[in-house]
């Protein structure tokens, strides 16, 4: 078992060898919170994440295939590849990422952390990963925030490519973009970056 990633609430492991590899996302215990609350959160979030991934797949979004769901872990196919933030040739992939987000939003799924660190490029195709902060029945505001986060996490050129592809594939894009500019006018978002 090899640790391949670690976030605030989960660890990502690679299990198995070569062609028979599985990726396991395991929500780890947080010692700071009481056990009842900890178990309840990890359990419900694991279930929800799996459910959103299934719905996203059904809607036609490229996501890793889920193999099994445990109490605190999701077992999925291991995709060999690089994160979008680490790839060199980009514009084409950002166009693809824009279409993926359009399809997600059409199905009213919001990702919650749509950045180049959560798009995996495997065999030349883009996959959306880490649905840890995602939700079904996303609101206009949440959809706009998906775009806003991406806008803050990549270059102007990459974002422009993503947005125009998003607009092309999503009929409600105008509404979302209008909300996005409203959000940007609210003072606090202008200074909200991490160095």
């Amino acid at each position, binding site marked *: 078992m090899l640790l391949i990633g670690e976030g605030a609430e989960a660890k990502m492991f690679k299990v198995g060898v070569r062609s028979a590899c599985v990726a396991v996302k395991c929500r780890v215990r947080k*010692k*700071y*919170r*009481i056990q009842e*609350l900890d178990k309840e959160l990890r359990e419900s979030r694991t279930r929800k994440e799996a459910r959103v991934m299934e719905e996203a797949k059904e809607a036609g979004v490229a996501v890793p295939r889920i193999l099994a769901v445990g109490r605190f872990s999701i077992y999925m196919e291991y995709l060999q590849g690089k994160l979008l933030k680490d790839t060199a040739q980009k514009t084409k992939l950002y166009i693809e990422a824009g279409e993926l987000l359009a399809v997600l939003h059409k199905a009213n799924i919001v990702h919650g952390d749509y950045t180049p660190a959560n798009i995996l490029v495997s065999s030349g195709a883009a996959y959306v990963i880490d649905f840890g902060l995602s939700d079904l029945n996303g609101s206009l505001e949440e959809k706009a925030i998906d775009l806003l986060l991406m806008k803050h996490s990549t270059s102007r050129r990459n974002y422009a490519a993503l947005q125009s592809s998003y607009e092309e594939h999503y009929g409600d894009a105008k509404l979302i973009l209008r909300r996005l500019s409203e959000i940007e006018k609210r003072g606090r978002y202008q200074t909200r970056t*991490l*160095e």
Partner: protein
Amino acid sequence: MLTLGIESSAHTFGVGIVDNGKILANVKRMYSIGTRGIIPAKAAEFHAKNAAGVITAAIQEAGIQVKDLEGVGYTKGPGIGPCLQVGQLAAKMLASKLKIKIVPVHHGIAHLEITKHFCGFRDPVFLYVSGGNSQILALQKSKPPHYSVIGETLDVGVGNMLDSFARGIGLRPAWGSTVAKTALHGRYVRMPYTVKGVDFAFTGLLTHALKLSGSVRKEDLCYSIQETAFSVLCEATERVLLLSNKKELCVCGGVAQSKRLKEMLSKMCYDHKIRFGYVKDEYNADNGAMIALTAEKLLKGGYQVPLDRCDILQRYRIENAVTLQG
């Protein structure tokens, strides 16, 4: 640089005196919230009645002469308008009588500065939790430098939420520390839990807990609302720490007096090898020393404001407030 600071943004009228970062006096009197919370006009009246007495007591405690003062600071905001005005007026009177420099101070920045000062941290993430505020912040070394809010409450501050809850279920005195005491013998019942990335919300939790009052034991409600609210704060803070790669955390503000919150944050930091710091309760509750300390730092940095431009601002965002690097 002998500096006096006046805090009067909410229920506390506090006066602190510092000299080169050393606190010589920290005196305060607090308006009693009774069962009805803070009534702005009454609190302001309380401050006005006590201002002279608290200032005199602080000067005595510091063992200095009024004429030795070199600077004065006061809370510009955010806070309750009529209350802020009392502190502003007192500071302006001192400044014009003694002909010394005066500087308005952002209340939140004063909490951060005194905490950073005592912890000796270089570039921490701050969890600032009080009645009206719940924010996760860090210093941006841009020009001009400012504290930027990375995550914050989307509705109410955690302190006000706990106070409203205490009032709602009939605890006396109606605030967070009474909730904490009652929670000691509680068991967990399920509560709504809202974290959205690095932001969070509390009103859903409050409404739910109040709805259960009557059918669930008070002890259990107190325990559950407190555990849930503090876990929410810990989780959002943990995410900010990992995203920012910073290695220090400070907790400050009135709610930072909570032992349980500090225990949880300390466990979280231990697991990520992050240094964790906080100051004595005396400096986490609203106080004049933090205003004096911040005022002295600003004055030493060459920042001062002409008397006729010393205003107050009830809704004063921390990003827009003057601060200095380091």
